[in-house]
């Protein structure tokens, strides 16, 4: 285990540092609440029963929720290794379920006007028309819109929310539900298991290859709210899918909680690519558990970009269960003043000849803090496993901080692992050089940051990498001319 900290020469004085900010304005708006169902403040067995009742769930799901609540209550906050900021989450001041009681609409024309305006401002219908195979748009606890191309339906593709998935397609989803990520995996997976609502349940039949991505957009509109979507994607033998998720929330004075569970199952020869662009407002605690299982010759790739939130804790994982399975995590994190991005990857090799790759880049601005936690596990009885881990951190000034905790457990001697880590700073000399060419300090910083992530930004689909660059543009606020 090693920790890197760079606290040397200051690159920016405080004034300049205060003047640069990241554009998070795009999601910062909200509409008055209009809820038919509101589970009220605080979490108890009654809250869980209320949610289960609204959803008219079967007994086994209600019992699953009850057990999960017990696990959640029994588990301590993981502050023995994670930040004490977790103690600032007040579970009694959060509402766990808010919805207008409407089923998701298949046409944007039927969506309530304020919800439609929300998603139009975020560009969701426009993206759907341009390049998506299907979209689910979640507003607080439930999807307001859900639709996909008719030809995919004919091929047997299922793309529904969690309630519908468990009710209408129990035989497909129940065998994997809560199996990739057990309730007790961590405190927040237990919380999600108790109060989950929304998210996507997707099944891609054997041999079906989606040419265009499916997308989910998670929008929080209400204050003092927790969003707990649950996603389960099953790609049957030889199937291929790219799934993208985006998320925003207005900036409230009080804390908002987002705690999702995402389970991926790639059967023999299947490929799942899961892309996230997380741009929560700076009052959101984003505590997410994501894991995929890759069977023989299957591939699971997590492409994860974290720009927003107050605190993100997220370590996407891949369990490589079959021979020649592949797992990959590509991650970009940007931590500004007051933000903590605690991200990483878990690669569990559980079969011979499995390959995993982790590339993580983090940027810390001002007092922002980024942490990489990696776990690579290769047991003794396996042969021919490979892991490559690269983590690079960029610090924008002397108060920024980055830590790296790679834990690589390799038993046996028939494996190949490689680990590289670097910490660099936007140096004074680099800024002076760029400024001498007439580029302002803010623009110079923006160029340097975009340059740092340039190779990873290419991994995102074109439509998203443009968005990404725009989001990461650092702007001189209030500069003259």
């Amino acid at each position: 285990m090693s920790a890197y900290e760079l606290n040397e020469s200051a690159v920016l004085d405080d004034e300049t540092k205060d003047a640069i900010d990241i554009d998070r304005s795009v999601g910062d708006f909200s509409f008055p609440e209009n809820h038919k169902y509101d589970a009220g403040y605080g979490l108890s067995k009654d809250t869980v029963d209320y949610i289960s009742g609204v959803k008219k769930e079967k007994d086994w799901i209600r019992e699953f929720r009850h057990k999960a609540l017990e696990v959640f209550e029994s588990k301590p906050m993981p502050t023995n290794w994670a930040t004490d900021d977790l103690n600032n989450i007040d579970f009694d001041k959060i509402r766990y379920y808010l919805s207008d009681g409407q089923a998701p609409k298949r046409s944007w024309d039927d969506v309530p006007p304020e919800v439609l305006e929300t998603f139009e401002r975020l560009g969701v219908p426009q993206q759907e028309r341009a390049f998506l195979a299907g979209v689910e748009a979640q507003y607080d606890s439930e999807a307001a819109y859900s639709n996909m191309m008719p030809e995919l339906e004919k091929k047997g593709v299922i793309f529904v929310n969690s309630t519908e998935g468990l009710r209408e397609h129990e035989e497909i989803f129940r065998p994997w539900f809560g199996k990739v990520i057990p309730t007790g995996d961590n405190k927040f997976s237990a919380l999600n298991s108790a109060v989950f609502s929304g998210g996507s349940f997707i099944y891609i039949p054997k041999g079906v290859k989606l040419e265009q991505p499916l997308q989910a957009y998670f929008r929080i509109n209400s204050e003092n709210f927790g969003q707990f979507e649950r996603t389960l994607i099953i790609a049957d033998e030889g199937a291929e899918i790219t799934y993208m998720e985006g998320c925003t929330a207005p900036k409230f004075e009080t804390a908002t909680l987002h705690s999702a569970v995402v389970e991926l199952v790639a059967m023999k020869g299947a490929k799942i690519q899961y892309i996230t662009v997380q741009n929560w407002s700076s009052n959101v605690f984003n505590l997410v558990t994501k894991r995929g299982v890759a069977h023989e010759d299957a591939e699971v790739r997590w492409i994860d970009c974290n720009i927003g939130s107050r605190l993100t804790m997220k370590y996407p994982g891949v369990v490589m269960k079959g021979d020649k399975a592949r797992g990959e995590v590509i991650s970009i994190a940007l931590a500004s003043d007051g933000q903590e991005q605690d991200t990483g990857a878990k690669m569990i090799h559980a079969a011979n000849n499995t390959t995993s790759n982790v590339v993580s880049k983090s940027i810390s601005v001002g007092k922002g803090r980024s942490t990489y936690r990696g776990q690579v596990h290769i047991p003794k009885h396996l042969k021919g496993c490979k892991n490559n881990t690269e983590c690079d951190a960029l610090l924008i000034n002397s108060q920024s901080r980055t830590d790296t905790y790679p834990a690589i457990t390799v038993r046996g001697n028939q494996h190949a692992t490689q680990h590289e880590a670097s910490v660099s700073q936007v140096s004074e000399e680099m800024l002076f050089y760029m400024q001498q060419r007439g580029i302002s300090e803010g623009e110079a910083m923006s160029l340097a940051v975009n340059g740092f992530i340039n190779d990873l930004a290419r991994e995102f689909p074109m439509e998203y990498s443009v968005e990404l660059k725009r989001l990461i543009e650092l702007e001189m606020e209030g500069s003259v001319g």
Partner: protein
Amino acid sequence: MSLIVNNLQASIEETSILKGLNLEVPKGEIHAIMGPNGSGKSTLSKVIAGHDDYEVTGGSVTLDGVDLLDMEVDERSRAGLFLAFQYPAEVPGVSNANFIRAALQARLPKGEEIDAVAYYKSLYEKMDILEMDRQFTARSVNEGFSGGEKKRNEILQMMMLDPTFCILDETDSGLDIDALKIVSKGVNSMRSPDRGFLVITHYQRLLDYIEPDVVHVMADGQIVKSGGKELALELEESGYEFLKEEPAHA
């Protein structure tokens, strides 16, 4: 434009480096500054460009009557000042084409965009003069460049930004004779009655290719001797020994 440096004093971490330096480069002229190591030549170029490490404790620097010392580094650049660095910084992940474009964009009024076709046409023309491969545009700024490539890149940027006053800080260091000729060709193509040059160098060799109008000798933070281009040849022959016999006067 003409550069006037008047009684310039600057220090770094309390150590005085420039000790009342006077220099005037009228527009259309090329002046060379030579001098032993540690005389403050590179400091002079960084102070004129506005590097943070140095504190100006007295004097003035004006470019065609405009006070440079009150301006930010990027403002000085946009006012027409260009510094070709002795050790150009690397900017990983940012392509040369994007970097130069950003620098040009910074000179345009808000809302105005660079014409991409015209930009590449102009970029390729200048790269041809400097005998640079087209692939160069996609490479990250100075990353993995040889010494010669870095210096050519400095001259390319200079040609693209079309400054009114250019400082070349030891542009000849680390260059073989062929690269030196190419770089000099680029500089000479920019000679103009409206543009001034200050060429800082250790060696007379560069001045065979970029012919100066005036040569200054710098020692201990001051200009101690000025003359025609023959002064450079004298220095090449007899070195800076004379400095010991003729101590500088403030």
